[in-house]
């Protein structure tokens, strides 16, 4: 069996002591930033990227992945105890989780959140294994034509499913693509928009852009909001949930996992959309709807399962097709390229150890998270006592050091400063920066494949519709746009995201 030999290879890689160590580091950092509101996985991964150069690519990737799903665990702790989402993905957990904490049931809420996440993580790992092989087999048939169409679909879908205004998101993707063009043109050697800056020759580094937009831009926006930080000061006890709690939450967990897996694979899904959907579904299906919003345990189990499943399955498009599903996966693509690994369909056959090692490490990491989160919950809660007035200067400093470290270049710090200013402007005008990052990372690939496809077809744009796989991808993309422009769907989507 191919699947089992792959999994065996993955597990063997994941339990190597060095990889276990980096997995642990990743999930601990992930939990910490997940617990702390105001710093998310994107700036953290961007910050740590430069320091993974010295590591083996597999270890580095295992650690960075751990940060992402670890943050999903940590975010729920803050949501339950403080009623502030540690991460956007745990917004819904606030609703019932915090109510449970107020009723003195913080222990069971935390336990169910962790167990749901673990359960979802385990199933998602299996789903990744099952889907990866057929997808990458399909992807190996891709030429420049199909690849271009796939990139277009990926970018569009990411926009459709993201938060905020669709038109603005589309414009942001284009801005990202434009930034991606900066640098020396590979086929002609002409410098494009480098303005004589030598550092721009190799293209614009995405780390300073990500840190400026996500790290510093967020700080400036956060400082304008009035601070809210109240920890429910109660002893967390009864960490072992009762049989009744488990029985009530099991079906919710399963449905949440399913929803998370499906939405996670879609580009743009990631960790933000699944919990909202899962919560809405549970509320619809539940016999006692009145309990929702007043401490229903299903209202904790389903979204927690969904966000963890979504976080993990969003690695599928990345590992099989080389297409990032969200801004964080775009960073991961950058990480791969820095380690000299070309992301794309061939990655599965060329780097089986990396791919399966990372997949298996997710399950190992989830097991670690269960241990890290439940008995040690007190430590994480005490971290919340760090005031924001000390935290944000520290984040700013870390952004500076990380940006400098990526190429030991002071120019990158100035670039980050510029991006921070632009990022602040974007927040002010209500434009989400995530699509820009996707465009920036995918821009060069998009151009290369487009030019290659045009060269093959002698400048005939119809080639994208003549190849069957490419045509299907483009039709799906066109349908997305059409659906999006129809007013009813637009309203529904707004409601779903606003809820």
């Amino acid at each position, binding site marked *: 069996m191919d699947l089992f030999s792959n999994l065996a290879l993955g597990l063997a890689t994941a339990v190597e002591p060095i990889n276990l160590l980096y997995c642990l580091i990743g999930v601990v950092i992930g939990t910490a930033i997940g617990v702390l509101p105001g710093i998310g996985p994107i700036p953290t991964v961007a910050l740590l990227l430069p320091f993974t150069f010295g590591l083996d690519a597999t270890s580095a990737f295992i650690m960075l992945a751990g940060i992402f799903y670890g943050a999903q665990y940590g975010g729920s702790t803050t949501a339950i105890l403080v009623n502030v989402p540690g991460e956007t993905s745990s917004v819904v957990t606030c609703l019932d989780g915090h109510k449970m904490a107020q009723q003195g049931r913080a222990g069971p809420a935390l336990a169910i959140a962790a167990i749901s996440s673990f359960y979802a993580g385990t199933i998602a790992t299996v789903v990744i294994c099952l889907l990866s092989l057929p997808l990458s087999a399909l992807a190996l048939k891709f030429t420049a034509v199909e690849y271009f169409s796939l990139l277009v679909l990926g970018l569009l879908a990411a926009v459709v499913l993201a938060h905020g205004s669709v038109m603005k998101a589309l414009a942001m993707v*284009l801005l990202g693509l434009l930034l991606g063009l900066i640098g020396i043109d590979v086929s002609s050697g002409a410098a*494009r928009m480098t303005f004589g800056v030598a550092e721009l020759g190799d293209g614009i580094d995405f780390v300073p852009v990500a840190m400026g937009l996500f790290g510093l831009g967020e*700080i400036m926006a956060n*400082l*304008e909001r009035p601070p809210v930080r109240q920890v429910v000061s109660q002893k967390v006890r009864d960490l072992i949930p009762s049989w009744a709690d488990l029985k009530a939450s099991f079906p919710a967990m399963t449905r949440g996992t399913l929803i998370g897996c499906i939405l996670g694979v879609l580009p743009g899904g990631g960790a933000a959309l699944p919990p909202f959907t899962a919560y809405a579904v549970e509320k619809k299906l539940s016999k006692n709807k009145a309990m929702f919003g007043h401490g229903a345990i299903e209202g904790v189990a389903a979204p927690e399962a969904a966000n963890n499943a979504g976080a993990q399955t969003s690695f599928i498009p990345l590992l099989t097709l080389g297409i990032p599903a969200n801004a964080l996966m775009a960073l991961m693509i950058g990480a791969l390229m820095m380690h000299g690994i070309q992301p794309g369909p061939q990655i599965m056959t060329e780097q089986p150890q990396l791919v399966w090692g990372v997949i298996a490490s997710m399950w190992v990491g989830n097991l670690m998270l269960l241990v890290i989160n439940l008995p040690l919950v007190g430590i994480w809660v005490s971290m919340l006592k760090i005031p924001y007035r000390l935290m944000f200067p520290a984040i700013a*400093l870390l952004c500076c*050091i990380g940006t400098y470290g990526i190429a030991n270049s002071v120019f990158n710090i100035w670039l980050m400063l510029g991006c921070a200013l632009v990022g602040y*402007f974007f927040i002010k005008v209500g434009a989400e920066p995530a699509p820009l990052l996707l465009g920036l990372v995918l821009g060069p690939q998009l151009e290369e494949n487009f030019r290659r496809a045009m060269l093959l077809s002698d*400048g005939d744009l119809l080639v994208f519709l003549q190849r069957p796989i490419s045509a299907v991808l483009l039709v799906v993309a066109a349908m997305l746009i059409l659906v999006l422009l129809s007013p009813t769907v637009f309203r529904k989507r707004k409601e779903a995201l606003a809820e």
Partner: protein
Amino acid sequence: MTGRRIDLQDLLFGLFLVGVAAFTTVATWSLRVGTAANMGPGYMPRAIAALVCAFGLFFVGRGLVSPFKSIAPPQPRAVIFILAAVAAFAVLVTTAGLMIASVVTIVIAGFASREMRVVETVLFGSAMAVGAVLVFVQALKLPVPIWPW
């Protein structure tokens, strides 16, 4: 503020996009565009700039006819001090070393918040500086001077 029909968010974003498109077109003017079958380096920048410009005009138009919507007034304090902190780091890191650059960055950034307490921030900054040197220079081997000498 009723009666005015301007959505400032859309309008400003639209103007920004048009500006970026215009700037790109000027900056890539001398690059060869070529044909679709044989694209020059200027083809993609020009094509994307045209799209960006179209989006920009759309937002300007929508902004002018939408009901009034202001943007939250910017608070210059946060923006100025955060950007100044980053600029200070850029200037100091290779000249004065990571230790001094870190303290200065933290203290300047601290001023961005009204809750800032000077003594606490200086102490915290010093601790962070020592930590940063230990982690990034000693452990992670970031090639950067620690002290100005």
